[in-house]
């Protein structure tokens, strides 16, 4: 016997579908709003000066963020050099070598590290690097961000290596390769697209971090030579200019925000597209 669905139930069904759809649209529209607003206010302040000039003395208008753009690049380079090798090799360990219990312990601790608020990492980097060295530096900032990069590096490496089917490993070993050779010359190259995109997402995440840089890299009005001097970075400049009273600095903050967000989103989209089209997806 076919049951007729009553009108009230049908109405409830339609209403709930619409409501949940509205919520989704609301959330998605926030993204477009943020992008749109930054585009509107940021692009108009983007000029040649922004990318080539140094900041002006306090209170004067004009100038740019050339040193902050280079500074962010330098700090992120250091962070990658510090955090990614440790994270990557630890991920290799978890995927290829480790026993079950030890792996559980490592994974737990890695998750712990992932949950540490970024400001706490900044404090630890201050006590471990800035104090003993006796000055703020790009190196200290890179250390803080590098530590933040480790958990995601471990997780993505482990995930993408585990996704490689074992017949590939068996094949290599059948040909006489040692474990190490198998891992580094066969398995890792097979997972390379996933690994690279994972690292890209990782980089995009720390590129926008501000709090850890406040007590490590400090800031610099000039070009910072080398890696052992205080250095200006894009997120910290955005913060400083946003809370300043001068309208001109607000404009520069919007421009910098636009540049930062564009870079972060481009890296994100590229990385996700690589994963979506990569061998891992094709195998599904």
């Amino acid at each position, binding site marked *: 016997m076919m049951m007729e669905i009553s009108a009230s139930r049908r109405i409830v069904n339609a209403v709930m579908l619409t409501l949940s759809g509205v919520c989704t649209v609301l959330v998605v529209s926030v993204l477009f709003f943020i992008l749109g607003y930054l585009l509107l206010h940021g692009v108009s302040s983007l000029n040649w000066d922004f990318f080539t000039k140094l900041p002006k*003395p*306090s*209170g*004067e208008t004009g100038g740019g963020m050339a040193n902050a753009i280079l500074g962010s690049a330098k700090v992120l380079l250091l962070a990658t050099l510090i955090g990614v090798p440790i994270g990557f090799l630890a991920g290799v360990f978890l995927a290829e070598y480790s026993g079950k219990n030890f792996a559980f312990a490592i994974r737990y601790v890695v998750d712990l590290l992932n949950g540490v608020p970024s400001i706490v990492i900044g404090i630890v980097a201050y006590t471990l690097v*800035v*104090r003993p060295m*006796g*000055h*703020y530096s790009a190196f200290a900032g890179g250390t803080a961000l590098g530590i933040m990069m480790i958990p995601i590096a471990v997780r993505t490496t482990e995930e993408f290596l585990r996704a490689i089917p074992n017949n590939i490993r068996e094949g290599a070993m059948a040909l006489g390769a040692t474990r190490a050779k198998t891992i580094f010359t066969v398995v890792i190259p097979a997972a390379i697209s996933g690994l690279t995109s994972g690292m890209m997402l990782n980089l995009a995440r720390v590129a926008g971090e501000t709090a850890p840089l406040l007590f490590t890299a*400090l*800031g*610099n*009005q*000039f070009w910072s*030579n*080398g890696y052992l*001097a*205080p250095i200006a970075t894009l997120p910290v400049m955005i913060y400083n200019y946003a*809370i*300043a*009273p*001068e309208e001109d600095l607000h404009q520069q903050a919007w421009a910098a925000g636009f540049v930062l967000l564009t870079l972060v989103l481009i890296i994100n989209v590229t990385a996700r597209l690589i994963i979506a089209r990569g061998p891992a997806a094709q195998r599904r």
Partner: protein
Amino acid sequence: MRSHMLRNVASAAGLLALAAVAASAANTVQMTGAGATFPAPIYTKWFNEYQSIANVQINYQPIGSGGGIKGVTDGTVDFGASDAILSKEQFDAFKSKNDGHDLLTFPTVLGAVVPSYNLPEVSAELNFTGPLLADIFLGKIKKWNDAAIAKLNPGVKLPDLEIVVAHRSDGSGTTFCFTDYLSKVSPEWEKTVGRNASVSWPVGLGAAKNDGVAGLLKTQPGALGYVELIFAVKNHLPYGKVKNKAGEFIKADLKSVSEAAAAMKEAAADTQVSITDAAGKGVYPISTFTWLLVPNKFKDAEKGTAMKNFLSWAVTKGQDQAEALDYARLPKVIAEKVEKRVALIK
């Protein structure tokens, strides 16, 4: 073959680039200083200028006087800057953390702390007195059209608007100067709040740095806060006159601030004296020196020499630029003392 050559060229270029960076690093003396936002406009201007005169790059980060004192004490920056007068404990703390070396203080310019406000309908310059300001910041006077304010400003239509007190949320020499003045003119203030770079404010919104307070004043109707003079001027914020000890209502400017220092007969060697509420005609009562905090011994001798030369330049040629930014120049007597005292830096 070709790829080998390309690789060699690339690595040679890379090495040259590194060498160039290293070379440029070797020639310029680089120093980092941090501290007061009060003199940040003139300091950053000076350091910008000085870089082209001498091959010295001085990076100054305005993070508040509290941060400057801490930075130079911990040794995380080469020198500090503060308009808060250091206590004996702070000097001793520096000594104990730095192998018994002393922290020297050098005055650089004079500035004023002005009571700035946001009242779009009021075009006249308001008059304030010390006790009135103390009562407002204590939270006893809550509205702009209060009788006490109206009495000092006859003929001005004051709105029925709540006074939104704005103060510093960070450790600030500007706060030190302002609370020092309030402590001198209001016994209740001295008892309940006191004078310091960071105090427990009874009422109000907090913002970081002079910049933050200026920002609050710009956006919050009915706000009343205290900022260094140049921050009010640059941001087109109105600021009021304050009654001095002689009973005159004085507006802060080069002349009235200089008068405050001129009233100082005896200058201690380190000039760490308060010049608020000074006696005399034409004196602006909320004025202060601002000091550079310099260790008497630098680990890097080059830095010590650079600092000595900079200080000598700042108290002579630099003083002209100070006036352009509404900071009063040091009295001649004190400038000469500074020039002699830089010899103490090693």
